[in-house]
């Protein structure tokens, strides 16, 4: 019995070290443009969302890809989120562009083998249907096993009937950067997670159990800045 118990403990310990969580942990460090080395973080408590590529939608049929070129080193076993930033210029948001964007995101998911993707985008109101359909197609393409997260403007979260309610995603991360203290969002889907910029902390209202994404600003992450960010949140 004791041997079985010991074996079980050993197996559980091994599993906890090698198997990544099904859902992101409650603290995620965003790594955007900097050359980051995040191998020092505790993978059981903290995940990493790294910008994997920027996609630029332009004209009627163009989607230009700018993959990440600066390295980010992450310890094995850390929960990884491949972030895809999407911007646009004189874009028509056509079905062909939707197809290309979905294919590119799926490619990134395949290459990185990250358990989660996060789409960071801004959208004019006219592009809401485009993103709604895009996220639907992406869900079909990636299947239920890949966690799909999106970032959101605060204004999208300020109505209980937000357009976000139509999106097939696992998580919405509002980003009240530079906006000062905010009251809980009227749209319930926006309350589970929040993105904070280190330069703003702690001017936002946090709620218990919320997943927090930390944006470091233009600088690289360091042990000190990670610790300081977590301390700020505790307070």
């Amino acid at each position: 019995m004791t041997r079985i118990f010991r074996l079980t403990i050993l197996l559980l310990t091994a599993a906890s070290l090698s198997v990544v969580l099904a859902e992101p942990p409650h603290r995620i460090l965003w790594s955007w443009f900097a050359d980051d080395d995040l191998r020092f973080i505790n993978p059981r408590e903290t995940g990493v969302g790294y910008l994997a590529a920027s996609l630029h939608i332009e004209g009627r049929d163009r989607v230009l890809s700018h993959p990440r070129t600066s390295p980010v080193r992450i310890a094995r076993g850390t929960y990884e989120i491949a972030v895809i930033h999407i911007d646009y210029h004189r874009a028509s948001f056509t079905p062909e562009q939707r197809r290309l964007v979905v294919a590119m995101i799926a490619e990134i998911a395949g290459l990185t083998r990250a358990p989660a993707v996060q789409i960071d985008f801004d959208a004019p109101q006219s592009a809401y249907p485009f993103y709604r359909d895009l996220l639907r197609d992406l869900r079909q393409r990636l299947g239920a096993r890949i966690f799909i997260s999106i970032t959101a403007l605060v204004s999208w979260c300020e109505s209980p009937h937000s357009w976000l309610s139509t999106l097939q995603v696992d998580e919405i991360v509002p980003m009240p950067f530079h906006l000062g203290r905010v009251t809980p969002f009227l749209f319930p889907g926006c309350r589970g997670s929040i993105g904070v910029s280190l330069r703003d902390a702690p001017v936002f209202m946090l709620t218990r159990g919320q997943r927090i994404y930390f944006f470091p600003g233009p600088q690289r992450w360091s042990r000190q800045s990670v610790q300081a960010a977590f301390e700020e949140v505790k307070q």
Partner: protein
Amino acid sequence: MRRTSTIVFGAALFLFTSWWIVRACAPEFEVAVFSYKRHPDLPRAGFVNGNLGVLQPTFARSYLVIAYRYLNGAGLNQREREQARDYYKDRETGTWDHVGTDWPAKWQAARARITSVAAPHQTQVGNGQQAYDPETHSFLLNCAEDAYRVALHTFEDRRNRFGASSRAFIAWLTAQDAVFANCDGSQLTIPPEAAAGLPSLIRADREYQIAAANFYAGKYQTALDRFERIGRDASSPWNMISRYVVARTLFRMTESSAPAGAGLQRECMRIVADAKLVPIHGMTLNLLHRAGVLEQDSAYFRSLAILLSSRGQDDGLREELWNYTTMYDKFIEGPDPSPFRNADLTSWIYNFQARDAGAEAQSMSRWKQTHSTPWLLAALTHATSRTPERADLLNAAAHIPRDSPGYLTALYHADRLQLAAGNRAGIRDSLESIIGDPALRPLPSSVNLFRGLRMSAAPNLADFLRSALRKPVLITYSSNVGEVPAYFADPKTSQNSAAVARFDRDATRILNIRTPFRLLKETALGDVLPVGLRREAVMTALTRGLLLDQDISGIVEKLGAAAPELKSRVDAYRHEDTDQGRRFAAAFLILGQPEARPFFAPGISRHTRSGKIDSFRDNWWCPLDLTELYDSHEAAVAITPGFLTGEAEEAEKELRVLKRRGNAADFLGFIVLDYAGNHADDPRIPEALHDIVRSSRYGCNDDNTWKTARRAFQLLHKRYPKSVWAGRTPSWTKETSIREQMKWEREHQQ
């Protein structure tokens, strides 16, 4: 290491291209460019093919390198021309020429046309070229575009040689697909050894393809062994390039921390020491440069100059141009001039561009030593009518054959020297002939330069005016120092057309400084000029005539015919029967026209319509020393037409008078206040006084202008307090910002 070099290259690319895209926050004014100064005529295909036009010392140095190659007989072969185009693509100017230089896209387009073998899937995120590195979660450029260029050329050759549906070609294509399948790093795909029955060329290709596939797959040791073997195989067409790729593989191994640094340097030096490998010398040296071995090395700078002057640079030219121009920029900022003497190309560029006496002496000395075309052009560019070797230079220029790349530059400077020596009639026909030559149609900048000479050869005023008119090659913004063709969005949004003939600076200099009022009046009354310029000529002559106290009645009549909206003020002038009355009427006319000034402005002369105040204070005129409008270089190279040589005294006398007259508000204010003194009942006076205050605000003013404005203001409010013009003139000011003044004006008018 690899990442570092990528970053350094990226930073260098930004630094050396960013000046094209840096745009000022200050107001932008449209300007007309009549001859490009930074680059040759567009598209640059003609220049890259050796049709150099008239070379300018102000051209970017890469163009002078290309020019030097043509002038010394090396020229550019087909591959070097491609390399030159790719270099300009790197400089983010590739789109100027509308030639496709996107080799991966070209490869994919060519590949897609072969439907008998399905084109392989290609990742879209990394454009098929970038490989994902799971260690760093980032993408690295694995297959550079040069790989696609070489593949495309081989594709075309093998298809033409064996046929698109041949077994040989299909075998080559299938293997090439396998090579490129490694580019995105997602799979390892090595083509199999070639079947024995395939042609020997395809088998040799396959050897290279297998080595390349290993290289892109990161199997560097295997790639190295295979490239070395091909390098030893004299029968392989890939023999020479494999020697270079061996070094390149060692470089990648160095980047990936494998112990290959010393081997890389040794291999590179072995290549450079082998005279049979000249075509890969440049790219090999570039590799050492990228490896940081040759940074700041003046011997390397010299080697690059020698390579860039030599034939057979082939696929190395692009990087040689990059490294050479980058090092040139570094050296020229340093205190040590010796790097500019250690190679003929460098010395030529330095002396061709410099404008000092030392450069002139060195150019002359080098021409006497070498009698080469590049140095003849350098010496000609510096020469003036006082140069002792002028006759020898002219003689040498006359012997440059018409099909020489240096012909137009030599002809231009020879004609310039002839003109400066007074031989105007002798070269007039020659200039007419060259300007009308259909072969110069792709070289509008050069044609405009020859037009400038033709203008100075004019025998009379009408001929001068006709040849002074030139169409710009570009309408752009003043901040566009790089003469980028599409600087701001759509050029069609410009309010000024490049199709309209205008005056360049050399023409306005002659008109403003060398031409007496008598001939300016003739210009205004004549019909040589196009409509837009004719009105400017009329207003210029009218203003200058008033300033010089000359008879301007004929000019006012002409203005009345050209500008019906001025009818009432023109009629008022006609009805005056005293000199004082006519002067007042003319001043009143000019006060209503802020575009009025006693001189011509080059290119786009003003950015605001006639009769409207310009927001940036380009209204009326400032105190006038017209010679200050032009710099000393313009003065040095200016050639006054022969018909004006007898007018010099009269023109200079008038310039002295103009200089004493002061700015518009003071000069016109004096006339108005003088007239108002004894014509209190004239209904035009209140408006004229208002106009004086207005011109002091929106025009040029100096320390005393406010006194004129105050006098006008006080008289207006004292004598005509209930007039509408007094109401529209609530204050006078010494000086406020132009924005505040415009705001004041708008609010007040409402």
